[in-house]
């Protein structure tokens, strides 16, 4: 067995294709890692600027109701390995007590030159997806067909070795050969990452990278086995190579791009969006009736929500409405700098009014969220899920999904940020309750004391722990492993049955 492995290993190591593989992998991975680190640094600068600007904007707000809080999503340092959805989805979202923020309400930081996006950028996972699979097939196409052509297979089988052992030895030695360029290039990339000052990597990040590499090895093995299967099925190496290339072209180039184009969009989703949007609008109408009711029943005659006070300053009442993302809420704020002396007796009433109104708005926002959440899942997340399942028919899709889960740039990883933003909204509301902000004068006016933002807890977003990444990545990793086992069993059966 060991002799077999050694023979195969020496055979493989001394070939031109091995040298070419090492060279190509190093070239591509190193050059792209440099570019990707640059890109990450640029995004980090954008992020830091945005955080600073948003912080300043909040400090400038003199009343509580005018405070527009924005939270920013930091770029993921491991997006260098697989960019996933990190650049595609919004990276800043407003946290407002009267609205529960989601991914679909997020915006993007400004970019220097949006037209530059016409050039696609590639990540390390893409290099591995394309080149490693190709290399695996190049290493595999002649393992069985080649020996059969040269007649050495017959020779080997005359010795008392079991066919399973021969297969296994071939598999192990080729994998070892393929691991050399893979590990060399990955370790160079990691060295580049650790020497870059802008990237702060934690222990968890190194474990995530380990998960990424593990997945890559399993993926590599799938393609090697595909090549071996083709090699076992064909008589001639030329045919094996040709078939391998077409199989590669189909799975890597064509299938992922074609399958998504050929599925039809579902029309029922739009109907559902419309009906949910209606429901949300009704909730708001109800809320407005309650508001009117309050104004009618309170001690002040008339239904004027301004209570007829004279003031100087700014006010805002904006309806944010988007039927496509089921967004519907009013954003109300006052920034009163001066209040007419004669209106002073009215102030307690207006303060009472907001003490009643704001908790009601918060409650309404939570109720809206309960309707909106399942609808958004249906309209946006489910089609995306179906797409991903279709992509997983190709090993490329499995690999992509698993590596995105490891590095945390998959949809779930991005959504973690938005759950953190939702959690932060609760913190902000608690902060308002603690300060009794709704009933305070500073809610609307800054004439006698301004809003105090100093004790407001800062927003911080921690990427999910490694265990969560692992749980998300395991199903796809498992799928890849199963594919491996199935392929190996099939090859074994074919190889055992064939005449030499």
């Amino acid at each position, binding site marked *: 067995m060991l002799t077999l492995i050694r023979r195969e290993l020496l055979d493989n190591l001394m070939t031109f*294709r091995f040298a*070419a593989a090492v060279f*190509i992998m190093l*070239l*591509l991975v190193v*050059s792209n890692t440099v*570019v990707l680190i*640059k*890109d990450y640094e*640029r995004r980090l600068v*954008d992020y830091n*600027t945005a955080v600073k*600007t948003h912080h300043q904007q909040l400090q400038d707000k003199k009343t509580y109701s005018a405070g527009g809080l924005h939270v920013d999503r930091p770029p993921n340092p491991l997006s260098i390995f697989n960019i996933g*959805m990190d650049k*595609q*989805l*919004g990276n800043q979202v407003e946290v407002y007590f009267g609205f529960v923020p989601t*991914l*679909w309400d*997020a*915006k993007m930081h*400004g970019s*220097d030159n*949006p*037209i*530059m*996006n*016409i*050039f*696609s*950028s*590639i990540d390390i996972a893409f290099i591995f997806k*394309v*080149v490693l699979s*190709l290399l695996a097939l*190049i290493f595999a*196409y*002649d393992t069985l067909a080649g020996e059969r052509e040269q007649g050495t297979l017959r020779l080997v089988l005359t010795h008392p070795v079991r066919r399973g052992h021969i297969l296994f030895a071939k598999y192990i030695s080729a994998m070892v050969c393929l691991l050399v360029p893979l590990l060399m290039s990955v370790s160079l990339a990691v060295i580049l990452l650790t020497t870059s000052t802008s990237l702060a990597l934690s222990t968890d990040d190194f474990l995530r990278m380990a998960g990424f590499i593990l997945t890559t090895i399993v993926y590599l093995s799938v393609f090697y086995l595909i090549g071996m299967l083709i090699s076992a099925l064909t008589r001639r190496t*030329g*045919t094996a*190579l*040709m*078939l391998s*290339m*077409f199989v590669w*072209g*189909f799975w890597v*180039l*064509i299938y992922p*791009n*074609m399958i*998504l*184009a*050929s599925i039809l969009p579902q029309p029922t989703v739009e109907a559902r969006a419309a009906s949910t949007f209606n429901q949300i609008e009704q909730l708001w109408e109800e809320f407005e009736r309650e508001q009117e009711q309050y104004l009618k029943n309170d001690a002040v005659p008339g239904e004027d929500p301004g209570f007829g006070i004279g003031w100087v300053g700014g006010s805002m009442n904006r309806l944010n409405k988007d039927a496509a993302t089921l967004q519907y809420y009013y954003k109300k704020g006052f920034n009163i700098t001066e209040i007419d002396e004669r209106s002073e007796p009215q102030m307690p009433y207006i303060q009472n009014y907001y003490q009643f109104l704001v908790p009601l708005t918060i409650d309404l926002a939570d109720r809206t969220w309960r309707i909106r959440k399942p609808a958004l899942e249906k309209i*946006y997340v489910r089609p*995306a899920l179906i*797409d*991903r399942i279709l*992509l997983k028919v190709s090993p490329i899709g499995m690999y992509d999904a698993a590596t995105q889960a490891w590095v945390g740039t998959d*949809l779930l990883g991005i959504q973690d940020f938005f759950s953190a933003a939702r959690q932060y909204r609760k913190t902000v509301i608690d902060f308002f309750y603690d300060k009794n902000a709704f009933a305070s004068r500073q809610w609307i006016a800054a004439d006698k004391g301004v809003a105090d933002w100093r004790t407001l807890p800062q927003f911080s977003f921690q990427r999910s722990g490694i265990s969560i990444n692992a749980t998300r990545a395991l199903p796809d990793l498992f799928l890849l492993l199963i594919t491996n086992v199935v392929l190996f069993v099939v090859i074994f059966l074919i190889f055992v049955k064939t005449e030499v």
Partner: protein
Amino acid sequence: MWHIAKRELSNNLNSLRFALATVLLLGLMLTNAVVHLREHPERVQRYRERVSGHQNNIAAQASNSLYDLAQKGPGYLYKKPSDLRFCAEGGEAFMSDRAQAGYHRWSTDTLKSFWILAYPSATPNLDNVRPDVTKVDWGFIIGYVLSLVALLFTYDSISGERERGTLRLTLSNPIPRHTVLIGKFLGAFISVSIPFILAVLVNLLVISTSSGVHLDSEAWGRLGIIFFVAVLYTCLFLALGMLVSARVQRSAVSLVILLLVWVVFVVFMPSTLASIAGRSTSSGPTYDFSERSWKLHEELSSDYYSRHYEAPEGSTKKIEIDGEYVTKDAEQQEQLHEERLNRRIAEVHRARAITRISPVTIVQNLIESFAGTGFERHLQFLENVQTYVREFRTFIVDTDSADPESLHIFGVRTGMSQEPVSPESVPKFEDTLNLSRDFNTAATELLLLTLFVLVLLSGAYLAFVRVEV
């Protein structure tokens, strides 16, 4: 020679690769046609609605007064969607489909800012959580798939014969080597062309028989050029395949080399080079821009207010000062927007120049140019917009000078003609494509591609003539 070509052809036609290539190309082209038929009518419909909305807008302002038209401007100008979008998607999603010829900034009690021409960025679709994939357009099919197929047809054309020993046999006949080479080239060329032409015909048949999409004669001409580009590009890879095949002893080694070359030049070069070129230069962050714009406006305003209050109330002098302020402000701001646009364009130009090392970028740029999509098309749209804006402004000046009651002072209501304008006389924006312009911009790339083909062909010839059998 024809004999050799025929032999090669019949060899290829019966092979597995021919069948696989045909199936692959047919499937891709069909998908492309179906997707186009699904998406294009919607796109055209949306464009028409927007344009008619824009026309109504102009008509409403024109029937008010000339001042209103001059102050508000023509409004959004829309880019016409190309009928040949299925040939090249061209990153259209990242380029805005409109220009804003009516961007307002401020108004005071007495004055309103004049419109300026602004260039809004494309709004990225942040709602889309679906995985991002390459669009299957002709550019993809030709650039990636056809080139791979061409390599797979030629990698063993010479080394394979050498391995089997038939090359020696062929050359023992009294035929010059270059004839053998050309014969082989022609044979491979025809056998790659057959599946491609078949796929293209099916694609065009599906698209042209549908009622939703209309292709005019110019579009067919453009398709012809695109087809020619595809043929040239195929020749490039056939020549490359033959060159390597002639130099290398074993066909397996030849394929390994070819595949690695292909991966580097076709898959990685374009994006990596563009990233390097793009990241090395930076045009300055966005907030700088708004700050500069604000500062310019402030400077002008402070100067204006001091002069405004000096002038006597109700005099023509005062109107003149007001008018000068408004027009100067609009000029300055518009210049700022244009400068930013030009900086962005220059950056993209630099990045595109570097990526031209890769033949796939060249061919995709060419297809984009002739399909009327992509960056060059965007530049043409911007040029059309700027021409139209000049025309519109001349129209305003001319109409104003035709009115004897007007003071001919632009920027202020009291200084300009109050007469309504007939909406028909207002110039209309037409976003046209100019084939000769497309030719001019594409000429360099076309020549570069031809050069590549010639170099590789002569390389293959030299390699084959010199080599020992």
